């Protein structure tokens, strides 16, 4: 705790833990996420941060926030459930892949090899959480967007931004408008591994205004996530399936 500024922001703590985890061998760390539903205000900042970070095209989403309205007017309340890929320890989506394009990496994250994926979309149907989407090659900037010469929102400028590469899995993926990967592939949340390996927390974690989304190495007994996932109010979605998600919810 800081004497002047008060309690330390969990972001700072998670950042320190991240640095500590990165000093270990990849196979010795186990990334997990905790989402405190009591703090989520449904601002969708995480969704947008994810879209911006991974330059997700229309129709592709890694972290939707599912909203539920409970009760009947006037006795109504709303619940928000951010739903990234749950990075199951027993993922139903990987064994169905006919070409080994999707698998759990040594850090416990379910990843997609874009160059190997044939685009059969079997994994999309196999995921019990519908956490995968397919990139059908849609673009935000198309011929219907006005040119608006000189303005930042014009077709050319916006198009240039859209065509710029993203860096998922630590590789450069340009979006030229042609049918090159990741167009035609299954896509999913990967805990922003490219950021994590560079010493940064996932985009959804850093942008969460309520500090609802927390992330860290569950193999570190002193980490925040290790503390939280043992709480009695920590649950996982559809436990009955035995998929052992690595994303926990505090309720």
């Amino acid at each position, binding site marked *: 705790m800081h004497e002047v500024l008060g309690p330390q922001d969990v972001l700072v703590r998670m950042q320190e833990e991240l640095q500590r985890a990165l000093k270990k061998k990849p196979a010795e760390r186990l990334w997990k996420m905790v989402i405190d539903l009591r703090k989520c205000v449904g601002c969708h900042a995480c*969704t947008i941060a994810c879209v911006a970070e991974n330059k997700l095209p*229309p*129709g*592709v*989403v890694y972290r*939707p*926030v*599912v*909203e*539920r309205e409970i009760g009947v007017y006037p006795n109504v309340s709303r619940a928000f*459930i951010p*739903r990234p890929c749950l990075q199951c320890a027993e993922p*139903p*989506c990987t*064994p*169905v*892949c*006919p*070409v*080994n*394009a999707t698998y759990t990496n040594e850090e416990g994250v379910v990843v997609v090899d874009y160059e*190997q*994926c*044939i*685009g*059969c*979309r*079997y994994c*999309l*149907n*196999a*995921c*019990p*959480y*519908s956490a*995968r*989407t*397919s*990139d*059908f*090659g*849609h673009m935000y900037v198309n011929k219907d967007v006005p040119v608006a010469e000189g303005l930042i929102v014009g077709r050319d400028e916006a198009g240039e931004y859209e065509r710029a590469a993203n860096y998922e899995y630590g590789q450069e993926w340009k979006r030229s408008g042609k*049918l090159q*990967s990741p*167009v*035609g*592939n*299954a896509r999913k949340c990967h805990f922003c591994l490219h950021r994590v390996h560079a010493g940064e927390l996932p985009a959804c974690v850093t942008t969460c205004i309520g500090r609802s989304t927390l992330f860290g190495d569950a193999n570190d007994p002193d980490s925040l996530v290790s503390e939280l996932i043992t709480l009695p109010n920590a649950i996982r979605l559809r436990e009955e*399936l035995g998929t052992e998600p690595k994303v926990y919810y505090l309720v």
Partner: protein
Amino acid sequence: MTEIKNNSENEQEKIEQEEIVLAEETEAPTPPAPGKPFQLTTNHILWGVGILALLIGSIGLFQRFAEGLRPTALGSYVPWGLWVATYEYLVWLEVGSLIVFTVLVYVFKWNTGLSRMAPMLYLTALAILSMALILIGLDLGHPFRFWHVLVSPQWGSLMTWMIWLHMLYLLVLLAKLALELLSHTKTTHQVSKWLSFLSLPMGIALVVVAGSVFGVVIGRPAWQGSGLPVIFLISSLIAGSGLLTFLFVWFMREDTPAYLELARKLARLLLAFLTIGLLVAILTGLVILYPGVPAQATALQLTLFGPFWWVYWIIHIGLGIVVPIFLLFSHTQRARRIGVAAGLLVITFIAVPLNIVIPTQLAIEAVEKGLIIAFQGPGLKAEYFPTISEWLVTLFALAFGYLVFLFGFTVLRLRPGSDSNLEEA
């Protein structure tokens, strides 16, 4: 006595003439002799229709390669649509007809008239297989990476098994067709017979695995379980025996009691399979609808009472089951009537895989409530109706298969009765 003999001879001549006309009509097109005026024959029309359909379908194919899957109605919540459903339908037809044929000819030693269909039936299966492979190949996000399944397969995936079995099935079929084209000896017959026996477990495995591809999907409760592999096998037998019956009635037509008797036997077999299929469908439906658990029941409710109720009630039940059963049960049962019933059943049977594949995916809200409105964009909807592009690609595949059949039938002369030695089988 002489008069009777003359009548009989006349009839025989008439039949022979009809056969010659039929054969001439389906010959490969030959350029008109110099100076002879061009005459439009049935053969020209058959080729013309096929080529025209292929050209029209090519528009969809061009779009598919130029724009990927963008022009389709497919999305992330309904990732499989018309092409996957048609693929399953074609697999049922292709495999089912060969399973029924092999069992009837080689196991139950049915009438030799049926065995004479072998070359044409193999050709039909190859044509259907080509349609199926085109459609499933084009359904891939990266069709040109198809070879990945062959060089780096994951054997834990049933889709891998499905693709490999289909490839092996293609090889067996090609081998059988090659044997049909070779000069017939006792050895070739033996090899062909053993290939047929080999294709039997392979075919059953292919259909069951194709059903299991859906059955193991935990994400779609309406598919999950052992029901679909069984339903796929029964559907394959229904569709296959329908196709076999149709082909027999249409291409083997003779004015003989043996022909009519065999047609009737095939009709009875078709009815038997249809009855089993109906029973299984009703039982499966009741088991799902009675508890009414939304994750499972919504898909079936959509099939029965959703916006495309007519696909089930009118196309499948009405035209595909009630009318054929009426025709097959008719007292004045004639071969032509059996052929019409079988043909109707085969064509409308496409409704079955459509109703298996699509409504389950549309029912995503029953599984993941609120997901549809959580984030919106193209393909993030619980909606699906094939676009023109999808229909055009389907037309291309069907036209391609049709031309394969026409080529084999007219040029390679893979047609019934081309080999009298086959009767030994």
